[in-house]
């Protein structure tokens, strides 16, 4: 595999993570428990979709087949999406959503930081822009985790269960595939082993402050990076793509 091919696939995967997570958060629009939280959530969703646009546009350019950002988001089949299983997990209750955000955003922030130092200039620029947004997302979600964990007995128990349930989707973030390895080798990309250690330390801090327990060793689910997704993903993709697929080229 040529380094350029790996770069293209890698950037496309970054786009998939941002797009799918953005789509999940969009599902919550007009359903937040408080008005202020509603605004915050919609801001976050749009941040991710904005990032997806940048990644997708760049991936489409690198591919050089005349496709654009919309083709990447709306006209690829389910099994070509290489997002992590974690980001496609349903929103569940508010605590589930916040735990998913903490688990992913803590990793994503470290990943973006590392990518700002990669040797591909365009990707480094996109990462620098996204990093600023995600830094705030992590802070917001981590504070909620602390508030819920260190809140009432009920909120503590519920959010501990969220953490236990979502934990098995965290291993995939740090298991390097061929594209990750090519990024590291050819473009000075992120070293996932280094990221894993930093992620663990940061999570331990937040989880301790939230008076929660990190789950123990468990079998980790994987397959998202290879296009093998969990059951709910099909519904997400169907909803996300139905309009452009039904009315090709629709615009307003």
């Amino acid at each position, binding site marked *: 595999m040529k380094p350029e091919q790996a770069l293209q696939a890698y950037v496309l995967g970054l786009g998939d993570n941002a797009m799918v997570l953005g789509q999940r958060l969009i599902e919550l629009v007009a359903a937040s428990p*408080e008005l*202020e939280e509603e605004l*915050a959530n919609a*801001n976050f969703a749009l941040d991710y979709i904005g990032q997806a646009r940048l990644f997708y546009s760049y991936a489409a350019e690198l591919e050089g087949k005349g496709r654009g950002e919309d083709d990447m988001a709306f006209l690829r089949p389910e099994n070509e999406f290489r997002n992590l299983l974690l980001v496609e997990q349903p929103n569940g209750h508010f605590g589930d959503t916040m735990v998913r955000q903490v688990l992913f955003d803590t990793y994503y922030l470290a990943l973006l930081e590392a990518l700002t130092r990669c040797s591909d200039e365009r990707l480094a620029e996109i990462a620098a822009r996204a990093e600023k947004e995600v830094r*705030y997302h992590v802070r917001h979600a981590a504070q909620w985790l602390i*508030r819920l964990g260190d809140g009432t007995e009920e909120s503590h128990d519920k959010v501990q269960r969220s953490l236990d349930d979502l934990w098995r989707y965290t291993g995939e973030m740090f298991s390097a595939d061929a594209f990750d390895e090519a990024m590291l080798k050819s473009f000075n990309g992120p070293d996932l082993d280094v990221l894993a250690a930093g992620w663990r330390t940061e999570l331990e801090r937040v989880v301790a402050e939230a008076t929660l327990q990190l789950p123990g060793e468990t079998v980790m689910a994987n397959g998202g990076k290879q296009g093998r997704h969990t059951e709910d993903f099909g519904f997400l993709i169907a909803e996300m793509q139905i309009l452009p697929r039904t009315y090709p080229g629709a615009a307003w």
Partner: protein
Amino acid sequence: MSKQEWPLYEVFIRTRGGLSHRHAGSLHAADDQMALDHARDTYTRRSEGVSLWVVRSDRIIASDPAETSAFFSPAEDKIYRHPTFYEVPDGVENL
């Protein structure tokens, strides 16, 4: 599930360096940190500010509307408190 109202906070924004913070509005939040985050998300989405203050509305000591006349009216007939009341004598420099 009990539905308790979150306390009200007042939001003040400094729009640029050198200007003072101005009252922008209010919001609900469960604690101080959340109030700051909500203020950021609600009032500074379009680059409205460079600094934020939030303060719980019930911590503000406000004048009583019922006492307006005792508080503010006595100043109305004391026009000599305004510099324009005084005529500047001819020949005075540096006033």
